[in-house]
């Protein structure tokens, strides 16, 4: 008995002593004191040094988008660092091109704040905020896409441009022990300021979408940051060619209904929505109604693989083929055109090719890829 006691005591005492030494040295070695970060030469914040730039900025209410939540695996949280912070780390190099290196672009989750820094970030990020919201409604729009309505609690309103996205914070659940952050486009219109609507497709094995589909309950409190993104309508008179697939519907829906609500645009709008069969198609009635009310708007849903029981008499074939057919035969050729695409990288790349061959310049094609 005494043997067990002595063994436990001695092992614990040695461990405690060494742990104490580690804590002491940690507070000494990792103490970088107060550090100043100058943002866009305008704003200076004073922060405690020692943490990665991404988290330090977040602690000050400046949210750099990051799809992986700061683990250096998505390469999204890029920031221009004007101060010398040392060589590029092996964890950064896969995500930063040679041109970006020349401009001192770094991954903010990998750069530690150790001394005074000067950084540049897009102005809009300075205004992105953290929001608390209540899950008002979770509705199935197809067998694998849910429409999520979030009622804002704090702050109570949001300002965004149609087409932008937010980063949803998914709380730990099941075997996932950390907060997961994922980006989703807002599908509601900007005029509705106290609520946002998101369309979330279940990705098999996806940490965030599994939570939304299987664990999230109505009345639950959830946090998100935003708005972010460069995908929004450019104010020109060019004909808009919108193409979406699956939950790529979200930003396009927001853009189209925003333009309709404002009523100021005389632009012609063509919206091509691609799906496999009828069970993947949604919001068709909503857009058909809009088509009736609004002469400028044309909605073309297309099925690539309609089932016999679908009784489908609309367009069939790959969305790229349908798009090509319309660009060649139905859409007026003389007017300038702009492309707005949202969906999988494969679909977007294929659509860009079709648009280019039909004379839409690449710099006039805007897209939001689901990476």
């Amino acid at each position: 008995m005494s043997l067990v006691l002595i063994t436990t005591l001695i092992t614990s005492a040695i461990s405690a002593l060494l742990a104490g030494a580690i804590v002491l040295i940690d507070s000494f070695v990792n103490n970088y004191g107060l550090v100043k970060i100058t943002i866009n030469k305008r704003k200076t914040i004073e922060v405690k040094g020692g943490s990665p730039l991404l988290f330090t900025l977040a602690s000050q209410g400046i949210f750099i988008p990051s799809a992986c939540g700061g683990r250096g695996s998505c390469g999204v949280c890029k920031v221009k660092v004007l101060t010398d912070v040392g060589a590029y780390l092996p964890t950064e190099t896969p995500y930063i091109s040679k041109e970006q290196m020349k401009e001192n672009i770094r991954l903010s989750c990998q750069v530690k704040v150790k001394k005074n820094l000067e950084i540049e970030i897009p102005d809009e990020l300075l205004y992105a905020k953290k929001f608390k919201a209540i899950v008002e409604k979770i509705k199935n729009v197809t067998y694998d896409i849910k429409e999520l309505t979030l009622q804002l609690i704090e702050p109570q309103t949001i300002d965004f441009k149609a087409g932008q996205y937010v980063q949803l914070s998914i709380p730990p659940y099941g075997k996932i022990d950390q907060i997961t952050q994922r980006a989703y486009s807002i599908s509601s219109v900007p005029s509705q300021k106290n609520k946002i609507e998101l369309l979330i497709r279940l990705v098999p094995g996806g940490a965030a979408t599994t939570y939304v589909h299987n664990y999230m309950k109505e009345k639950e409190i959830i946090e998100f940051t935003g708005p972010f993104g460069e995908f929004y309508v450019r104010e020109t008179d060019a004909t808009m060619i919108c193409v979406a697939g699956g939950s790529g519907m979200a930003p396009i829906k927001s853009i189209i209904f925003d333009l309709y609500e404002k009523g100021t645009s005389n632009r012609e709008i063509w919206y091509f929505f691609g799906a496999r069969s009828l069970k993947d198609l949604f919001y068709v009635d909503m857009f058909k109604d809009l088509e009736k009310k609004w002469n400028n708007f044309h909605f073309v849903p297309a099925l690539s693989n309609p089932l016999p029981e679908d009784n489908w008499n609309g367009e069939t074939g790959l969305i790229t083929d349908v798009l090509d057919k319309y660009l060649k035969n139905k859409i007026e050729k003389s007017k300038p055109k702009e492309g707005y695409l949202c969906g999988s990288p494969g679909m977007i790349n294929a659509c860009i090719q079709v648009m280019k061959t039909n004379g839409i310049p690449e710099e006039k094609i805007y897209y939001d890829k689901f990476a």
Partner: protein
Amino acid sequence: MNINPVVLFFASVFTSNILLTNFLGMCSYISISKDLNSSNGLGMAVTFVMTVTTVLNWFVYHYIIVPFGLDYLRYIIFIIVIAAVVQILEMVIDRISPSLYMTLGIFLPLITVNCAILGVTLFMQLRNYSLLQSLFYGLGSGLGWWLAIILLAAIRKKIDNAPAPAGLKGTGLTFITIGIMAMAFIGFSGMIRVQ
């Protein structure tokens, strides 16, 4: 064991090199030696950990393990001490050189279970070295490991471009090289007996 500490130091660097005569610490030796800079960093880290842990474990052995009759616990206690020193070293390297920290990657925490480090501590205890002898033995073995990995990294850099049969390139040639290096080092082991 009345071997002169200075003699012990040189013996552990050259004639009784922990890596090339006892074949301890081989996994990180082979993986990291692809790159000279990382080898240098890891060599430095191993030397530091080896020296500090051998001395610390000498104190732990003589002032805790022996008086309390805890010989059966020596492995776990030695490893706890090594783990703590590695943890501290990690923090220091992260502060001083983040790029070295990232390059060493998993091999830095793996020093904790590097058998060369525990091996040196156990040899120190088994051969009943004095404090001074332990210090010189730890430091010498660390420098010996560092020397061995630098030599291998340099040789590998050279033979990377050598016209070798395809099947031998990479690991095959590395093993042959290590074998020849070991023979060269062991060749002098008769000069001093450290056992």
